[in-house]
């Protein structure tokens, strides 16, 4: 059975202010073999009429994933590395609970296939010691996959933050967002 070389030293860092909205990650994501030509990453304009700002969203791999909690079919599994996997295809009933409950807006419902799919951090690649497709190709390095030490050296004025406040709810994640130095939480008003 699959041997895993998942390197827990490696972590995912996102800085959406670096994103140039090119969609390279989206194209590359579809090349990841776990999702068969479907792209799991989201790139969208925040308000195109006013600004070219785009945002890029991978699955944040929450420590206590809302998606898995609200799944009526127990289809979402978190493994020993903290990777929250895409829906188990035999169990998922396509109800969209996860799609609507995820605070980051990550899971996608494949309507006709009655299946939810989401980013699993390119498990075919990360479990083989490689980097996820999106972070490998990202030309602006808004998506970075490497060690915490590396990113702290490259971006000394930023701080990897993995805690979020959505309303009253604190969410802690495996994936980090690069925030101004000294910030410990991103509060979404």
């Amino acid at each position, binding site marked *: 059975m699959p041997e895993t070389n998942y390197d827990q030293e490696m972590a995912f860092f996102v800085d959406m*202010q*670096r*994103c*140039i*909205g*090119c*969609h*390279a990650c*989206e*194209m*590359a994501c*579809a*090349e990841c*073999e776990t999702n*068969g*030509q479907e*792209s799991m990453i*989201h*790139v*969208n*304009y925040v308000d*195109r*009429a*006013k*600004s*070219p*700002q*785009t945002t890029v969203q991978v699955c944040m791999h929450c420590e206590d994933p809302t998606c898995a909690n609200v799944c009526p079919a127990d289809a979402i599994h978190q493994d020993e590395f903290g990777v929250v996997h895409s829906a188990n295809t035999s169990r998922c009933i396509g109800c969209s609970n996860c799609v609507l409950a995820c605070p980051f807006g990550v899971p996608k419902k494949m309507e006709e296939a009655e299946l939810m799919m989401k980013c699993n951090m390119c498990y075919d690649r990360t479990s083989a010691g490689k*980097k996820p*497709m999106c972070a*490998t*190709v*990202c*030309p*602006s*390095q808004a998506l970075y996959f490497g060690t915490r030490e590396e990113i702290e050296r*490259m*971006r000394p*004025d930023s701080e990897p933050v993995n805690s979020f406040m959505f309303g009253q709810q604190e969410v802690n994640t495996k994936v980090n967002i690069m925030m101004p130095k000294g910030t410990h939480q991103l509060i979404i008003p």
Partner: protein
Amino acid sequence: MAKLPVSVDKIIDDFGPHKAYAPQTGFHGNSEPDKLVKTHCCYCGMQCGIKLKVKDNKIAGFEPWEEFPFNEGRLCPKGVMRYMQNNHPDRILSPLKRVEGKGFETTDWEHAMSKTVSEIKRIQDTYGKDAFAMLSGVSLTNEKSYMIGKFARVALKTANLDYNGRLCMVSAGGGNKKAFGLDRTSNSWADLKHAEVILVAGANISETFPTLTHYIWQARDNGAKLIVVDPRMIPLARTADLHLPIRPGGDSALFGAMLKIMVDNDWLDHDFIDNYTSGFQETIDAVKDYDLDWAEENTGISKELIYQAAEMWGKANTSFLLHARGIEHHTKGVENVLSCINIVLASGRIGRPYCGYGTITGQGNGQGGREHGHKCDQLPGNRDITNPEHRKYISEVWGIDEKDMPGKGLSAYEQIEAIHRGEIKGMISICFNPLVSLPNNNFVREALEKLEFYICIDTFLSETARHADIVMAGSLHEEEEGTVTTAEGRVVKINEAITPPGNTRRDGQILMELADRLGEKEKFAFPTSEDIFNELRVASKGGTADYYGITYQKVVDNMGIFWPCKTLDHPGTPRLWEDKKFETPDGKAHFNPVSYRPASEMPNKEYPVVLTTGRVVSQYLSGTSTRRIGKLLDQYPEPLLEIHPKLAFQYGIENHDLIKVKTRRGEAEFPAHVVETIREDTVFIPYHWGGKHSANQLTIDSLDPVSKIPEFKVCACQLEKTGKKGSQHLTETAYQSSL
């Protein structure tokens, strides 16, 4: 003869563009390829390293090449999807002949070759050698570019050879030659990393050179300030320290004014200016009246911003100035470039670490392709075809009599004009789609229809190829070995991943057979691409673009070698001018006085709005390949008219409204994209499309007097509401591309 043989719809049915997608689980062998071939992306001048997956002599996918030093695996969406061409259903798999009333039918190589050669001979015997012209492109390797230069002069014996680099970086080349005596970006991109100030003028890096973004962001991580000069708030400009939203065409006014501010504040490197440059006094005399009020009026940028930019630039210790087509696609393209070089020379920040200047070459081999002789005025090694010594040297290398070497020919657009006038009667083209990429393309179409015989070598039936009498099925980037020179001057190796499919041939093979049939077999006896390169090395020896010291082995071992590289033991030159010895006749860098003048067509009462054109990230140039790749087209399915809400309000235009844009040359309809990220007096349309979607129906065909580049970036237009809405389905994804 070159009118379309059947309706355009029938041709599109047969040859596309059709959107292609990979199968749901990827191409066969994607999981277990036979081999991974290290090569480069076929698109822009970044030439990112990439590994192609090959299964059963077909491209099955890609894998990032993380060891390649420039991009370390990073790619843009075009790079990710470039693997989709080889398996494409629209691919021309055999030579085609035009059949009146039917379209294009498959033919054999014998017919294609013999017909072509007999027509070349007929036309040249009847109208003279120069009545048969050749147009080429710089997505081709150095080897092909070199061979085409030789082919046109030695086998076709025509003076009229030019290339699509004429629409690309000729203004930069003209400016660089005047100022430095050599045409190359002065530094490798590595010098961006610790530059204190980066000034980007007319270069939509985030969409046209996305992988260069990392270098700029890295510099900013290290504290660099970023100044972006662009009429639109491009993604790069959103977080920039200064965004100067310039009125299209105001570039030399801006840089002239900045130079004056530098002089007034003595933000100058006197030592450098005095010892290593010439022409400073005349140059600053030319801008002495360019005060801030004048500058604000002529650039459309506020005084404060201009001053801040000049101060930021003037006071820096290290800096890098980058420009691209935004300042070069003008009737004063060369002047704009020179005005940039002037502020670089005044700062003295060149030839040192993190002190750089350069144009960002657009096409894959825009750099190498413009050095080895497929420009109408050029011979290999960036030599001058009118220079007797240069002619003599190359004639010797080629084994011809110098008297038989044709002289300077017509540039690309001038060739079209000559066809229109009836002076050029036949043409062969490769890797060029003038019907989409040249300005005022209704005129171009008329010209094509007047050709007596037209042969096109291509991989897909482009809009221009539809007018051909014979289409020769050529090779893709991954189907022929060679080298290209990236925008930073790095010569890299393109590897043959697969052999050409079906009844297609390598471009080199096609040209060699044509040369053979034209009676010049022995001069084109190149068993391998490396043999061509070795001849190129000799031909470039002693020229400014000297490749003599570069070999295939050296390129592979070092993952690229920067020219000039004059001897075999030389490691190459990533940074120019460290010795402050320039390639000009007097060895100094030249300031060139630039007086601002308006664009050839300024807005007036009748045509009140400025129209500018450019690119989007998911498409490449005339779109011959990228408009066939489903996911790339889906990202931006049709050209939109970007317009500011205030201008839109004047016309009562809302998002998605279909707008008729009219110029003195033509009219076309585009859905409005109402955004605050463009100047209020300017509208923007991307130019990648053909037919009724083509922005170049509207653009103006006036040329820069020196570089002969057309003025794609400024013309005057009218806007008219049609009362219709753009196709919601098509445009939605482009407005909001989250799928």
